[in-house]
């Protein structure tokens, strides 16, 4: 009697351990897949393009962008990505990376900021802005986000961004918080980071610009926000509109201390 019960206990233990060891969860499988793609990220192609555009003499004014001030002085690239959006004294407004690049393209090179802003993503000068943003982001890869909240505008935009984050609307009555306001949410196999707090290294704000393998496109933060609104069935926000900069400020300040992995690779 005793022998039989020991045997059955032993076999029960074996049976309970074996499945856990043999089965890989879908989540682990996806992590492995992402790790396989990490080396050889096609965003490097856009980094190279952006670097080239930064140094190239272009536009009606025949100048390069090498004197562009992204917040830490003309031409300073290292460490600027993780401080944006921020207040700029010369334009007297809050600007994110892309709007600041357009400012430089207008002031230094003579391009029309208005025209660029109205060019569809992936085309013409807008594609160049994306490439430039990819390049600038790469110069801060591995650094921690550290947006300033010193200026009054920076504080105001944070608060506006927070309210926009929770604002429900559109035919589905969605807000950003519908997807990004609670733990444990996902869309298909994509885990959605909670963006009302610091989501951690390389997540959320810390992962864009990113190359999206599903459509083979390089996506900047502006396009990411634009597409979030599209998914919520809201009207599209204007390029570098105050709403998008306010949201980016909210997300960026919340990500304080998170390590930037931009430019990243995404589904």
């Amino acid at each position, binding site marked *: 009697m005793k022998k039989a019960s020991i045997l059955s206990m032993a076999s029960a233990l074996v049976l309970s351990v074996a499945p856990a060891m043999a089965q*890989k969860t*879908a989540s682990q*499988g*996806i992590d*492995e*897949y*992402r790790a*396989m*793609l990490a080396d050889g990220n096609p965003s490097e192609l856009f980094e190279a393009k952006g670097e080239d555009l930064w140094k190239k003499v272009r536009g009606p004014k025949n100048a390069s962008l090498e004197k562009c001030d992204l917040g830490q002085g003309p031409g300073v690239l290292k460490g600027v990505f993780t401080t944006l959006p921020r207040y700029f004294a010369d334009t007297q407004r809050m600007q994110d990376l892309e709007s600041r690049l357009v400012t430089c393209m207008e002031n230094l090179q003579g391009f029309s900021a208005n025209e660029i802003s109205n060019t569809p993503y992936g085309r013409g000068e807008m594609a160049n802005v994306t490439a430039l943003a990819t390049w600038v982001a790469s110069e801060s890869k591995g650094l921690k986000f550290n947006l300033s909240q010193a200026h009054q505008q920076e504080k105001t935009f944070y608060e506006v961004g927070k309210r926009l984050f929770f604002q429900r609307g559109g035919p589905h009555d969605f807000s950003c918080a519908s997807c990004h306001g609670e733990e444990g949410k996902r869309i*298909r*196999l*994509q885990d959605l980071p909670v963006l009302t707090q610091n989501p951690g290294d390389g997540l959320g704000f810390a992962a864009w610009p990113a190359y999206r*393998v*599903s*459509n*083979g496109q390089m996506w900047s933060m502006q396009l990411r926000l634009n597409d979030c609104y599209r998914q919520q069935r809201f009207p599209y926000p204007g390029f570098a509109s105050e709403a998008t900069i306010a949201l980016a400020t909210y997300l960026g300040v919340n990500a304080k201390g998170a390590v930037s992995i931009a430019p990243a690779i995404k*589904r």
Partner: protein
Amino acid sequence: MQTRRETLKHSAVVAGLLASAGFPQFAHAAFNKAAFDAKTVQDATKAVGASSMAESKDVTITGPDIAENGAVVPLGASTSLPGVKQLLILVEKNPSTLVAMFYVSDAVEANFATRAKMGQSSDVYAVAIMNDGKALWAKKEVKVTLGGCGG
């Protein structure tokens, strides 16, 4: 379907191109349309001129168990065997099964990796075409959550 005579003729053409292309150690023929149009692993292997097919533990196919998106699936083919002429990567259920064909010379390792589009979950194959015409293969299953052919 290729007859034996056509296969031999193709080999002769390949040999001729071999001599003229200046790559003495491995064939670098014109684009093998028949192989890339083939709908099955067997047809693709035949179109490359293989005489027989056998599974082999000495051929390795690497890839993820599950791909988040079928547009970009990292796949690798390698073998430790000497006397390999070509290494092929195939996706069984793709509209055309052959993804890529690598010519193995003395100057490179028989170990190649690239990324492929997969239309759906499927077995993927690495096939080593040996100098004696035999085809040795290995396969694994890759699950795809969103197909990558139609955009």
